[in-house]
C-alpha cells in the first residue's frame, strides 16, 4: 500500500512541477491577476486593516500611523511584490520598522492576520502561499530592529 501511494505521489509531484515550470516564465504577473489585480489587492488591504484593528497585541504598533497612508503604501508594496504594474516608492521596510523592536511572536501574529485577511477576501490557499514566500524574505528588515 505504501509503495502504491509513493507511486501516486511521484506522478502528482511531476504533474505539479510541469505545471508550475511552464507558468513561471520570468516574472510572470499571473499571481497579480489570480488575486484580483488592483481591486483585489485593495480589498485585501482593507480586510487586513480590519483584522489589525481588532487585534489587541498588534494594534499598538500602528498607534502613530495614518490608516490612509498605511493602506496606500501597502497596496503599492503588495502590487509590486506580486509583479503587478506598480512601483513602491515609500519608505524602506527598515526605515518603517526601526525602533519598533518587533519580536518573533508578534511578527508571526501579523502573518496570521494577513492569512486571515486573505481568507476573508477568498484568495486561494496556493496564492496565499505564493504571496507569503515573497514577503517572507523581508523578515530580517522588519523584526528586532
Amino acid at each position, binding site marked *: 500500500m505504501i509503495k502504491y501511494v509513493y507511486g501516486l505521489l511521484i506522478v502528482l509531484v511531476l504533474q505539479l512541477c510541469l505545471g*508550475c515550470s511552464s507558468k513561471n516564465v520570468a516574472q510572470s504577473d499571473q499571481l497579480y491577476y489570480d488575486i484580483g489585480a488592483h481591486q483585489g489587492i485593495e480589498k485585501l488591504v482593507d480586510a487586513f486593516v480590519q483584522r489589525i484593528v481588532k487585534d489587541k497585541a498588534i494594534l499598538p504598533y500602528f498607534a502613530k500611523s495614518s490608516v490612509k497612508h498605511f493602506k496606500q503604501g501597502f497596496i503599492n508594496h503588495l502590487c509590486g511584490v506580486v509583479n503587478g504594474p506598480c512601483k513602491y516608492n515609500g519608505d524602506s521596510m527598515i526605515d518603517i520598522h526601526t525602533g519598533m523592536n518587533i519580536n518573533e511572536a508578534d511578527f508571526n501574529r501579523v502573518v496570521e492576520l494577513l492569512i486571515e485577511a486573505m481568507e476573508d477576501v477568498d484568495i486561494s490557499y496556493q496564492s*496565499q502561499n505564493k504571496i507569503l514566500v515573497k514577503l517572507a524574505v523581508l523578515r530580517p528588515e522588519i523584526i528586532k530592529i
Partner: protein
Amino acid sequence: MLSFANGKLLATPGVSQVEGSGGGGLVPWAQLAGYATEDEIAFSAFCSQANVKDFQLNNCGGQVNFYDRLEFSFAKQNLQVDPLSLTLSQEILGLKVRLYGDLVYSTWPQLSVGIQHKSLSTADVAFSLGAQDDTGTDIYLAASKLHLGLLAGYNVLWNATARYTKANEMGLLGFGGPQGNGALQTEMSVLVLLNKHLAVGTEYRHKPDNLGLGEDDWQDIFVAWFPNKHLNVTLAYLDLGTIAALTDQKGWYLSLSGSY
C-alpha cells in the same frame, strides 16, 4: 516571562514522535514541540497507539519547550507482544537543543541536536535474545525546512535526521547485540500541507539489526490534522517489516496531542 505559547504558525511544530520528542510520528525533527517562540514556554502532552499484526504499542508522554531553544521530553512505551502474551516497557527521557535557524524564515534549514535516554524495565526478553544492555542513549542531529508555496503553491516540509543508536526496536528489545553495538542511522520525513489545518506525508527510518533477527527499517504514510494550536490528531499507515523475527508487521497508528 511565562505567556501562552502561541507565537508560531499553525502546524509548523509538527507532532509528537514515538519516542516522545517533537517530530513526525517516527522521526525526531529539528523543530521543538509546541508553539513557543523566543520569549514563550510551551507544554504538550500526547498518547498514541500503534496496531500491527502481532504487536500493539501504547505510548504516552509530553514535552516542555523553553523559549524555542530547549525541549525536554518524556515517553512511556508499552509494547504488547500478542503471540507471547507479554508486555515490554521502557521509559525515554529526551533533550533537544535548537542550534540554528527558523523552520520557515531562515535561509538554511533549522538545525537541532538531541539525545534520547532509554531505560528498559522488562530486560529479560532482551537479554535472552542476545542484547548487551538494558539502557542506551541515542544522539541525533536533525535538519528541517518548510518551503512556502514550493509545490504549485502548496507548502512542503522536509526533515532529515542522523541518529547514532545501539537500540534494538527503539530499545524495547534492549541495546546492542551479537551483530552490532552502535551505528549511525538516517531518517527522513516529507510532507505537503493541503491547507493550513491538514498535512499528508511519509517517513522512512533506517534501523540496525544488532540481534540478527531481521530487524527492518520502518516507514509510514500519515495524515495530520491541526484544528487549532491546542490539538493535533495524526493517523498513519505503518509498515514496520519484521519485528523479532515475526514478518509483515503492518497496521495503523493513531496519535492525539494537546499543547498549551
